[in-house]
């Protein structure tokens, strides 16, 4: 089976979907120097060719809708179809962002309620919805920490502390906000190394970015102490909310003492990941950071008759804001999906989410260790995810985490996150989420066990995997990433 041609290869000069004779419209009145001399090199294909090509391409994806997708740190859970359908109602889709607020009371009221609900779930004083992904939420949070210190004249605080297990966006964000990044070590237990932390903090400390449960899949047991240490040194605490799915309804970052948090709605609140986005990264803060929240936010005023009026609130009303993060109001369509999800799940439901996400992870960890795999933190409770290290398998059979991952594709499972966090050698970070059934987990366990036997008996089977990814036109072998980076081929050109 050959792969799918690229759409440009399907084209024919002169083919067009355009249905009818061109209108009389012309560009005669525009200066010719401002116009194109040749048509843009786009494909020339029929509507059927477009539909067929992209329908076939779509089938070449594993996705939540088709496969178990235990990608650690990513919370690939079911994206309820109702959220999609309701966020795509024409009334929502067709409204221009600059229309007067009075034509947007439906969307504004939903967003206002979402702000309130997220504040309640996280225990923060206020939430702004405008960041367009987790990383932008981080940016907002860290920029607010900077603004806070600056406003107090505390200009020496140039260092941001980041645990060595942190997600790459944490240090990258700190840099983007002009901070120097200082890494804090992790203990063998998986908790943060308090000694390193104590050593690191000082008058130059702007804050600490913590993920809790951490990217190791562990709840940071010393979180209160950590917060005290940093606060006492005059720093603020940033909470990376990527793992919120582990604790909703069980614990709240605000109660722990964090000053800022971002939330990945495309994780905990089940908005789809879209093959790479869009997500949304609402940011919540404690009281002292409230004035700095990014704009716009949604405000509510009650009129004399007791009727609520919702309106966008911008830099004019919030002069201390760090500013706006996008031309308009962030990823509203995504936020509406999160709103619908939250309204369907409710408060007790949010606890059930954490409970069952955690149950699934601990069950998988128990069964897999029982089957001979090595958990990186066998004596700890897993949160909603956990780490296996394949170091033993590497040592004994010469197969790597990558080999395991690729072989899982042959079995019809998306692979867990590999080689992250960087601390644990040959690691698989496995996150089943609460929406997977026990049967599915059992099938995954069976596959892992089978692959482990293959590793013993025929390691080449893993090293050459995948062999027959079960998608149409599958049978693709392992792709050569080195070649891709060495001789970048980034756009299609006619070849012969």
């Amino acid at each position, binding site marked *: 089976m050959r792969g799918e041609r690229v759409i440009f290869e399907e084209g024919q000069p002169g083919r067009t979907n355009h249905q009818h004779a061109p209108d009389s419209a012309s560009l005669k009145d525009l200066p010719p120097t401002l116009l194109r001399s040749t048509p843009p090199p786009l494909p020339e294909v029929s509507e059927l060719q477009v539909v067929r090509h992209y329908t076939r391409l779509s089938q070449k994806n594993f996705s939540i809708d088709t496969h178990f997708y235990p990608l650690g740190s990513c919370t690939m859970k079911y994206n309820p179809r109702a959220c999609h359908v309701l966020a795509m109602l024409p009334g929502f*889709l067709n409204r221009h962002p600059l229309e007067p607020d009075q*034509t947007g009371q439906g969307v504004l009221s939903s967003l206002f309620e979402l702000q309130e609900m997220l504040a309640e779930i996280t225990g923060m004083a206020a939430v702004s919805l405008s960041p*367009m992904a987790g990383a932008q939420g981080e940016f907002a949070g860290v920029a607010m920490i900077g603004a806070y210190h600056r406003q107090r004249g505390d200009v020496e605080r140039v260092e941001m502390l980041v645990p060595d297990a942190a997600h*790459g966006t944490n240090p990258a964000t700190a840099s983007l906000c002009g901070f120097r990044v200082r890494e804090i070590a992790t203990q063998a237990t998986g908790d943060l190394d308090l000694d390193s932390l104590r050593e690191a903090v000082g008058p130059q400390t702007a804050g600490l970015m913590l993920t809790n449960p951490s990217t190791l899949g562990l709840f940071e047991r010393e979180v209160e102490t950590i917060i005290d240490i940093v606060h006492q040194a005059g720093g603020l605490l940033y909470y990376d909310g990527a793992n919120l799915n582990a604790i909703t309804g069980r614990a709240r970052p605000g109660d722990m003492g964090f000053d800022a948090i971002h939330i990945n709605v495309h994780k905990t609140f089940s908005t789809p990941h879209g093959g790479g986005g869009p997500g949304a990264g609402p940011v919540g803060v404690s009281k002292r950071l409230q004035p700095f929240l990014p704009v716009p936010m949604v405000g509510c005023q009650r009129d004399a008759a007791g009727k609520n009026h919702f309106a966008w609130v911008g830099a004019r009303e919030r002069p201390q804001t760090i500013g706006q993060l996008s031309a308009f109001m962030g990823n*509203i369509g995504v936020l509406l999906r999160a709103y619908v999800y939250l309204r*369907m799940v409710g408060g007790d439901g949010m606890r059930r989410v954490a409970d069952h996400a955690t149950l699934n992870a601990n069950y998988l960890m128990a069964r897999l260790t029982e089957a001979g795999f090595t958990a990186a933190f066998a004596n700890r409770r897993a949160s909603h995810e956990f780490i296996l290290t394949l170091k033993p398998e590497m040592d004994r059979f010469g197969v790597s985490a990558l080999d395991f991952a690729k072989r899982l594709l042959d079995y019809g499972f998306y*692979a867990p996150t590999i080689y992250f966090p960087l601390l644990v050698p040959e690691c698989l970070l496995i996150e089943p989420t609460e929406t997977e059934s026990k049967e599915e987990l059992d099938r995954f366990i069976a596959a892992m066990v089978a692959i482990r036997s293959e590793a013993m008996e025929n390691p080449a089977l893993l090293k050459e995997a995948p062999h027959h990814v079960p998608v149409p036109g599958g049978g693709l072998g392992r792709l050569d990433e080195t070649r891709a980076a060495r001789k970048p081929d980034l756009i299609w050109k006619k070849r012969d």
Partner: protein
Amino acid sequence: MPFIPHTQEDVQSMLSTIGVESLDALFDEIPTTLRSAPPRLPPPLKEMAISRLMRERAGKEGGALAFLGAGAYEHHIPAAVWEIAGRGEFYSAYTPYQAEASQGTLQLLYEYQTMIAGLTGMDLSNASLYDGASATAEAVLMAVRCSQKQGGCVGIPATVNPRVVATIRTLVSQLGIELVEIESCPLTGAVDWQRLAGYPQRDWLALLIPQPNYFGVLEEVDALTNWGHAQGALVIGVVNPLSLGVLKPPGEWGEKGADLVCGEGQPLGIPLSSGGPYLGFLACQTQWTRQLPGRIVGRTEDRRGQVGFVLTLQAREQHIRRAKATSNICTNQGLMTVAATLYLALLGPTGLARVATACHHNSKQLQEKLTGIVGVEKGYDGPFFHEFVLQLARPVESVLAGLFDRGIIGGLALASDRLLVCCTETKTEQDRDRYAQALEDVMKESGG
């Protein structure tokens, strides 16, 4: 339970496999002082009830005939775009880390990169950024990196969308990059490149050139590009990709072409949605490849020589380079690239040119109609694309209010006497007449 498949028996048997008594026990590592009750949220709604609520709320929205642009544009989106983009395999997949199991998304992104590069006249494109404004901020940061200079400033014409400028300010201000405003000509509504010669000498790192600019006016991009390059600046084109169906691609501006091109991809098949999600694009010439932020997809082969696609050049990115990455971006606007790719494939070169031409035609017609009304004058003289400024003899706010009462959103108030009006291919002659009639009435009425 909503979206949770566990039966009571499942839970019991799983707990006993784990060796704990209860779900509570799974959280025993959380200090007791930190444990919380479930959040107090409104009582959960069944799908039926939330559907009704959201339909009511959606029903309230919009409905007026809106002549708004200013960075987000209403276009007809072919039905096939979202029918395909909404397919679960695109919608519910993650960023394509496991290439062999993500060929759908990867090949599509490769095609998207090709289309954006083709439209802009650049060598390559990344696989999306958040929106046009943040993409422009990333372009500024990238240009600063490319320039490898310390200090220096970035020139931003006063004709750039102020929302984009505000976003740039938020995103780059933390790094102390100096942004210098470049004035525009009050008559043409464009930058007067001839006056630039008189500017105080400065160390320009980069120059933004918007096309069309915020007022819909077309800039003299060739002269500006040449001026920028003469100053040693990198030239960043900030463009409406739909207009590139007919306008000169930035890669051909001036003698050497723009160096980077960015902008808002929303016009390419993405609904207005009250403001997002949209799509930021960023394209560049090959020499800057390794400074490009965001995902990039490359074509490669498997062992047997079969073609396939992978995420590539990841050494630029946060998950590898961490504090030294080109950007902190991780999740981008993947699904929006699906829509944009479908849109561009469905329209093709002819379709895109026809839509752009129709937009031009309609806005021209509307401008003529409206400026025929007493008290309504052209704001600027220059050539424009699908958006133009009106100078009104009555206070804009009251004119807009009058129009709104007649079911029309007449545009965006730029000042107490200036209105920015947009008219795309979606506005029929009848719509335009309706606007003209309403404006005439309102101008008379609100008169004094």
